């Protein structure tokens, strides 16, 4: 599996072959608070880089989930729709959001590595 990459919208992405797995970061869940609702894209749908690909709601507010790269949705994680609290428990593991068949691998180059993201997250939250 590839190195984890991160977007400015606080999504993480890993690549296995031509399929990418996408979720939201721990930092994002800490900012959101208790997540009580999740909506995921439909399987088979084509999503565009930086476009909306889902919604999470905490007790406080709703936030869009964006896709950091373009592709076709090949799988979604129904378990987080059924039990959104899982997103707070393991956001960067079991609580992934959706998988994409990647359209253009070079889009990954625009994303941050872990170190860059941690610095970005720290700067933007203070």
């Amino acid at each position, binding site marked *: 599996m590839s190195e984890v990459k991160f977007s400015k919208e606080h999504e993480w992405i890993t690549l296995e072959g031509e399929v990418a797995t996408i979720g939201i970061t721990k930092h994002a869940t800490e900012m959101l*608070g*208790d997540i*009580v609702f999740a*909506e995921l894209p439909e399987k088979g749908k084509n999503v565009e880089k930086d476009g909306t690909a889902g919604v999470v*709601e*905490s*007790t*406080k507010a709703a936030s869009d989930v964006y896709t950091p790269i373009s592709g076709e949705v090949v799988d979604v994680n129904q378990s987080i729709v059924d039990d959104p*609290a899982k997103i707070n428990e393991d956001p960067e593991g079991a609580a992934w959001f959706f998988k994409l068949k990647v359209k253009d691998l070079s889009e990954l180059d625009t994303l941050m590595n872990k170190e860059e993201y941690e610095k970005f997250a720290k700067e933007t939250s203070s």
Partner: protein
Amino acid sequence: MIKKTPLYNLHIQHGAKMVEFAGYQMPIQYKSGIIQEHKFTRENAGIFDVSHMGQLFITGSDQLTDDLEKIFPVNLKNLKINQSKYSFLMNEQGGIYDDLIITKLKDGYLIILNAACKKQDFEIIKKKLDYKYELNLDESLSLIAIQGPKAKDVLGKVVSNITNLKFMNGGEFEYDNLNIYITRSGYTGEDGFEISLENKNVEKFVDQLINYGAKLIGLGARDTLRLEAGLCLYGNDLDEKTSPIEANLKWAIPKSRVDSDYPGSNIIKKQIDDGVKTLRVGIKPETRVIARGNTKIFDQNDKEIGKVTSGTFGPSVECSIAMGYVENNYSPTNTKIFLEVRGKKVPANVCDLPFYKKNYVKGEKNV
């Protein structure tokens, strides 16, 4: 300038995330988060800093009672000393400037006002009383609520003799050789108390409550608790264009006052006699989707019939809950309605309030 309550430092010490609310820096949540804080209040005892709310003292005797009855649609003559009533400050159109709790004291009245409304309320009330009385919106006092099934036990360890208080009644109590004022009331659907005491004593007082097992709870859980209990939030569910009758709060206007004079009384009487066009109802979406304030409500023929005024996830009822206003013929329980969330129509049902119910300590109807 954003104000701080005297408990600001304690909130920070306990890991509060602070937000601006009604001109004050207030804790929205602490480290454990809204859901845990909510559940802790339902099972134990939660402490709420509500010092941003207005504590308005009006000094006077029988003439003051007469004059206040011309302002508030409530029966103050029959009120015993230390007894409280829920009421409204209204405009001539029957709309609500604020919802409030009025308590009769030995030498006048105490009115608890919403933080965002208190300055305007003060001016309106002062003017309506023709500047005849001494009004004191007392900023030297803090207000603390302790709510939950263990509230009486925890508070009872810090203040003696509180368990005899009945719901919507208050009294003077002794704490650390000081007189403090406590009412049995709240905004969570739980048994609980509100304690008014001097700013300089409040941190020590709250520290003691914490030592006996209560926990600080933020505004986030205060909102989910009150919504589960079916209670209105001024500014969301009530405003200057909404009457108590439309808000389904007719119970708060006693029959004995329906024919007497107060601001908006003609309109209220007409609404009681003829009915209203829209009514506040409870709403349960059929999915987990949360319908927040201003979500449009439709019937099955796509006709717009109202809007949501408050909506959240209810941690104790474990489902999405909301309140809103619908055209009167859609107000019966179990009426099927649709909520437009992010462009999709989510099926929902009109339901009875509250969403969450507990038995109260004997006394009066909850507000």
